[in-house]
């Protein structure tokens, strides 16, 4: 009797296991669930929408979107990857931060074979997601950002003032605004990284593309007059920043601008959507860094935020690659740009938002956001040096020459061309 039950149980179990196996194989065909990690909690609705559109094409794949706080994201992600886990699809950053997770082999290398859509991107975008050591692309880029000047159209119109093209015009504009008791800029320097965005937004035209090329080729270094003089100009204009700007942190400077209490904000193109969401009545525009003399090329500083990568260890590689390919289509780029008001680098997208159109147009004349693109791979990073030394210079604790020399000295510890 007992033997019989045993037998029966065993048979039933085998049957169940067999059925389970078949079912699970079937289920795998029917439903693959991908996990997708991001630091963009505020874009959740957008991504959910994208996932829905993706599923219309690939009904067999579902995607679970999970977010973590931006300041902890890299830590959580790299810990998970190091433990051999982590999501199937990863929103990754670019440049040095990408290298931190791509170098150990956590990401799947992408090429035109497995992701033909890479052809939709300009080279500079792919370069941001390329590992310098093996030259392979590890993520599909999602957004181009620019450092420029955002301005409040209404304030300038009410004051009867025009946009500045040259540096002297900018100073004249600041004086005119100040005379009318309007804060020209809402910027503050208490938050270290704001010093770098301010340099990108205000000084790019004076620093110039040629300087960037010379730095990269090793013909010039940061003690070059083009860089030092630009810093001196920044010191000059800083008197028109927020009152007590050395103690004004990033959120306070944003608030000042959003409340309509300042005419301009030197910073990222990503601020526009943020400002608008906090105060939809704002009428905003953007302009490039003013040039030293009329006729010079006006520039903005551009870089790429990050990209979508595939976990090299995922068991659902095919599905994950399919999803990432979808995120590389012009259709996705158009939705991304128009919903999030961030410029997708994908070629051939249709932009609805006028300010994003302007940013896209300005991007035709751009240099790199220098330190992030070229010098954020080793310590002391160009960003650390630029941020703290500009902060110190603007606080009146060192001269532009000293600031430039300090930056140069720090980078020279690892950058061969500066060691001559």
């Amino acid at each position, binding site marked *: 009797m007992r033997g019989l039950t045993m037998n029966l149980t065993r048979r039933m179990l085998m049957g169940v296991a067999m059925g389970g196996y078949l079912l699970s194989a079937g289920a795998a065909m029917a439903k693959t669930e991908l996990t997708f990690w991001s630091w963009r909690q505020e874009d959740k609705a957008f991504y959910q929408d994208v996932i829905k559109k993706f599923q219309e094409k690939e009904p067999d794949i579902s995607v679970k979107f999970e977010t973590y706080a931006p300041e902890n994201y890299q830590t959580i992600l790299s810990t998970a990857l190091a433990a051999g886990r982590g999501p199937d699809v990863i929103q990754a950053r670019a440049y040095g931060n990408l290298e931190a997770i791509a170098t150990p082999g956590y990401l799947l290398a992408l090429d035109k074979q497995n992701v033909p859509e890479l052809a939709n991107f300009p080279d500079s975008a792919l370069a941001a997601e390329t590992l310098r050591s093996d030259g392979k692309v590890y993520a599909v880029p999602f957004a181009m950002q620019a450092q420029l000047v955002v301005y409040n159209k209404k304030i300038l119109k009410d004051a009867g003032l025009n946009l500045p093209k040259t540096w002297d015009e900018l100073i004249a504009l600041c004086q005119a605004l100040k005379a009318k008791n309007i804060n020209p800029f809402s910027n503050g320097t208490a938050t270290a990284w704001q010093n770098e965005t301010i340099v990108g937004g205000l000084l790019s035209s004076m620093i110039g593309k040629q300087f960037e090329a010379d730095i990269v080729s090793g013909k010039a270094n940061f003690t070059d007059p083009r860089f030092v003089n630009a810093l001196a100009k920044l010191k000059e204009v800083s008197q028109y920043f927020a009152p*007590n700007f050395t103690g*004004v942190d990033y959120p306070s400077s944003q608030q000042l601008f959003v409340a309509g209490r300042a005419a301009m904000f030197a910073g990222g193109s990503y601020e526009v959507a943020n400002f608008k969401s906090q105060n939809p009545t704002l009428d905003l525009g953007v302009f490039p860094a003013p040039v030293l003399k009329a006729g010079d090329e006006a520039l903005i500083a551009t870089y790429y935020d990050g990209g979508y990568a595939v976990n090299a260890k995922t068991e659902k590689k095919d599905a994950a690659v399919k999803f990432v390919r979808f995120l590389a289509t012009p259709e996705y780029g158009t939705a991304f740009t128009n919903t999030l008001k961030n410029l997708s680098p994908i070629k051939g997208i249709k932009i609805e938002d006028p300010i994003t159109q302007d940013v896209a147009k300005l991007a035709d004349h751009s240099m790199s956001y220098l330190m992030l693109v070229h010098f954020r791979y080793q310590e002391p990073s160009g960003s650390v040096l630029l941020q*703290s*030394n500009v902060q110190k210079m603007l606080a009146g604790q060192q001269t532009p020459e000293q600031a430039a020399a300090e930056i140069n000295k*720090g980078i020279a*510890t690892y950058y061969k061309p500066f060691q001559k």
Partner: protein
Amino acid sequence: MPVSPKQARTLKHRSWVAFLVIPPIVFMSLFVVYPILSAFAYAFYEWRGLARGEFVGLANFKEVLIGPIMGPVVWNAFLHNVYALVALMIIQNGGGFFLAWLLYKEPFGFRFHRVAVFVPVVLSTIIVGFLWKLFLNPNFGIVNQALFTVGLDSLAKPWLGDASTALGALILANAWHFVGFPTLVYLAGMQRIPSEIIEAARLDGTSEWQLLKNVIWPLVAPSTTILFTLLFIGAFNWFEIPYVMVGLDGSPYGTTDVLGLVFYRTAFGNQSASIQNFGQGSALATLLFLFIVVFASMLTLWLRRREIQF
């Protein structure tokens, strides 16, 4: 062989002890000893992101202590930790002692004040940090507004943006947050002193100051020992208030940098400026741990010997 009742009792006793002791030992080894040892081991390797590279011996320790890049940063931060320790010793623990003395004398409303002084300790450090950051805002913060109201405009400053005041502001915010703790410990210490001793001193005609200095202070020495040791540990592990109020970079330009911030930046990277170096981060954490353990133990032993028994 039959087990005698006595043996059975010992066995039962022993298994009871084992039952009580083994879980915490396992727990401690797993979550305290193992991470400390592994952090120690990590410090001997080169790291690429979070992937372990080659064994590099003491190179990370060397770079952290005397390297041309990390060395100056670390010592600059260490100095700020020392400032914080000294300043908090005077303001936070010293202030706590006097507050405790006031409460001990049970003035009008002392029950309310006893609670009030402890309330900030219960608040989350993150909240306290943000609160003080708002208070110290140069343009609409309550501190500068108050100075304007009383006509001391010249004293108003961008407190957290000025290199000469930023660290001091952090120290004061920290003292405001935690002063209730030394107050409570000292108050308990004072209440433990037999009332005859104080009465005798009063009969001998001591002044209030002499009483405080020659009677109360020596008799609350055990409280001082514990408070100083805790403050020592806290000052060298200082992280939350600086992190919330001035950010990972120790703004402005490193004048508020402390070892906790350096460790975090180095081990995990600073999203908007730097990249991580897990090996050097681990080396710094290990050194910091050893420094705190050695000095805190020595301090405790030394201070214990100076205590008076009664």
